[in-house]
């Protein structure tokens, strides 16, 4: 049984005492930033990246992955207790979770959210383990031609699943790709768009850009909105244990949520944001009495919570098997791999089995930790929620500065982050999402290299992309996606899905 061999290899990595500590640290930090509405996993991972240089790549990855799925747990805590989503993915949990809390069932809602997340996390880990090997063997057949098509698919799918205008998202991808071309050209050694700055020789660093766009830009935008003091539901969160009947009521929703999350997470462009919306809509449709939803229905918490956690985890599949990031956070992970000298790509599973399986196994370990630690720690999270934003945001600004300085120990990146903070605020103002830009930035150099190689091998003949069967199928999917997305009927449906 190859699957069990692989999982055992992974467990032996994940259960090393230092990796257990890194995993614990990751999920705790993740939960904390998930609980705090002002800061998300992207700037946090960017902030901690420079400090993982000295670590073993598997340990670094186990910790960074823990931040991501830990944040999904934390986000629901805030959604339930304060009616403010700690993360975008927990928007739906506000609807019924907070209603439950107001009825004095805060503890029950928190417990159901945690149990659903754990159940989904366990299933998703198994899904990753089962899908990883076949996908990786398919990936071994990839040449520059197929890889180029796959990168195109990754970029286009990211656009499709972004909120808002498709054309705007496409423009952001192209902008990101162009920014990815900054630096010394690998094949000719000529510097491009460096404007005489030696610091740009290695290209634009994605850490200051991610922190500027996602961390600081967001701070400027939220300071422009009126601030309310968070009102924490004070009672009922100590009573945590659900009854057997309540669990039985929630279980089918959990199961459906996990399925939806796992499926949507694997898609390039997937992640934790879309699945909960879909799961909530499905639960409402299946319910005998849909009017209970929005008034504290237990399925309205179990389904979406299972979906966002499953989606967060299965979004690692494209990255771990094919080296394609599914969303902006996975793009950061690609950058992290490259910083550790690991070339992301289809060969990653065969060349780095310890890393890949270690991370997969650590996800289950991390989910177990989250279930065991988090519920008893709820008192601390509640206290943390009472820190006013006027003190939190200056600290985030300071940490972003120090973290950015830490990448190369120079101030150039801090200035770069300053520029992108302003750009990030501009993007929020004009209504474009920055995630496609980050994907383009990270994938740009690989896209160019594979395109060049494919063209060199085929002697400048474009038909090579359709003559290879794998590449042809991938490009056909891209074509269908683009066509579907530009058709008005689908656009309307998609907007409805996001509104719901």
């Amino acid at each position, binding site marked *: 049984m190859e699957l069990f061999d692989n999982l055992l290899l992974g467990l032996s990595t994940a259960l090393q005492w230092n990796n257990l500590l890194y995993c614990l640290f990751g999920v705790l930090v993740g939960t904390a930033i998930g609980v705090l509405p002002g800061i*998300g996993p992207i700037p946090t991972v960017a902030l901690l990246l420079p400090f993982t240089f000295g670590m073993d790549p598997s340990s670094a990855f186990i910790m960074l992955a823990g931040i991501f799925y830990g944040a999904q747990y934390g986000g629901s805590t805030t959604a339930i207790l304060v009616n403010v989503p700690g993360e975008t993915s927990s928007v739906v949990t506000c609807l019924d979770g907070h209603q439950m809390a107001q009825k004095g069932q805060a503890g029950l809602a928190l417990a159901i959210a945690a149990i659903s997340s754990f159940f989904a996390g366990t299933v998703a880990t198994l899904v990753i383990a089962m899908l990883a090997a076949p996908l990786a063997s398919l990936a071994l057949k990839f040449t520059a031609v197929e890889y180029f098509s796959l990168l195109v698919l990754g970029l286009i799918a990211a656009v499709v699943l972004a909120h808002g205008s498709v054309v705007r998202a496409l423009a952001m991808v192209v902008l990101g*790709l*162009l920014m990815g071309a900054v630096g010394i050209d690998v094949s000719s050694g000529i510097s491009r*768009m460096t404007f005489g700055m030696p610091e740009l020789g290695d290209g634009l660093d994605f850490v200051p850009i991610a922190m500027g766009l996602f961390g600081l830009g967001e701070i400027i935008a939220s300071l422009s909105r009126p601030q309310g003091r968070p009102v924490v539901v004070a009672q009922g969160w100590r009573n945590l244990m659900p009854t057997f009947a309540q669990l039985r009521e929630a279980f089918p929703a959990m199961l459906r949520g996990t399925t939806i999350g796992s499926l949507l997470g694997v898609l390039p462009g997937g992640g934790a944001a879309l699945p909960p919306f879909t799961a909530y809509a499905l639960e409402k449709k299946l319910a005998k009495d849909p009017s209970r939803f929005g008034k504290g229905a237990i399925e309205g918490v179990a389904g979406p919570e299972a979906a966002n956690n499953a989606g967060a985890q299965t979004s690692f599949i494209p990255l771990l098997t094919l080296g394609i990031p599914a969303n902006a956070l996975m793009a950061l992970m690609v950058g992290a791999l490259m910083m550790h000298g690991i070339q992301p790509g289809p060969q990653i599973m065969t060349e780095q089995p310890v890393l890949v399986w270690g991370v997969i196994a650590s996800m289950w370990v991390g989910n177990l930790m989250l279930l065991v630690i988090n519920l008893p720690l709820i008192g601390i999270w509640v206290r943390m929620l009472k820190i006013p934003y006027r003190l939190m945001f*200056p600290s985030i600004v300071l940490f972003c500065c*120090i973290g950015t300085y830490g990448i190369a120990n120079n101030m150039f990146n801090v200035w770069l982050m300053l520029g992108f903070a302003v750009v990030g605020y501009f993007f929020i103002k004009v209504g474009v999402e920055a995630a496609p830009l980050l994907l383009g930035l990270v994938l740009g150099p690989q896209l160019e290299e594979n*395109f060049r190689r494919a063209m060199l091998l085929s002697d400048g003949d474009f038909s090579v992309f359709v003559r290879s069967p794998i590449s042809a199928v991938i490009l056909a999917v891209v074509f269908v996606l683009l066509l579907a997305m530009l058709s008005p009927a689908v656009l309307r449906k998609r907007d409805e899905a996001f509104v719901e």
Partner: protein
Amino acid sequence: MSHSPASPDTASTTPGIWGNSDLLLGLFLCAVSGIALFAIRKLSFGTLTDMGAGFMPRVLAIGLLGFGVYFLALAAFKRATESIGPVELRPLFGVALAVGVFALTAGRFGLVIGSILTILVAGAASKESRWRELIIFSVAMSAGAVALFVKGLALPVPVWPW
């Protein structure tokens, strides 16, 4: 709320010209494309089989220009435009200035002074800041930053001006 959905903060019906989001985005994209095309004007384009260093950047920059022109056209011909809403300068300048202050002071005068100044300037970005609280908080954060990053994570940055 790690990253709010990409809808403008407020949408009013009759924006002025400079509140038109299509126009602003179009200008931004055209400007970036123009700068890029200028910067790569001397790089060789090459052929498909043997691409020069300028091939990809030029293709991408021209593509970006296309998007820029598209948004400008939208701004010119579309009736209902989305306004970007009011632009608050205080948070924008406060946060930007705080980062600039860090870049100028943390290396020269050390992390202790740099951190205190960064927190104080950042605090000015919010109307809700209370000065006495912020001063005490900045000293505490400065000590915390030194303990965490210099002592804990061994970040090579000077701690004091001397």
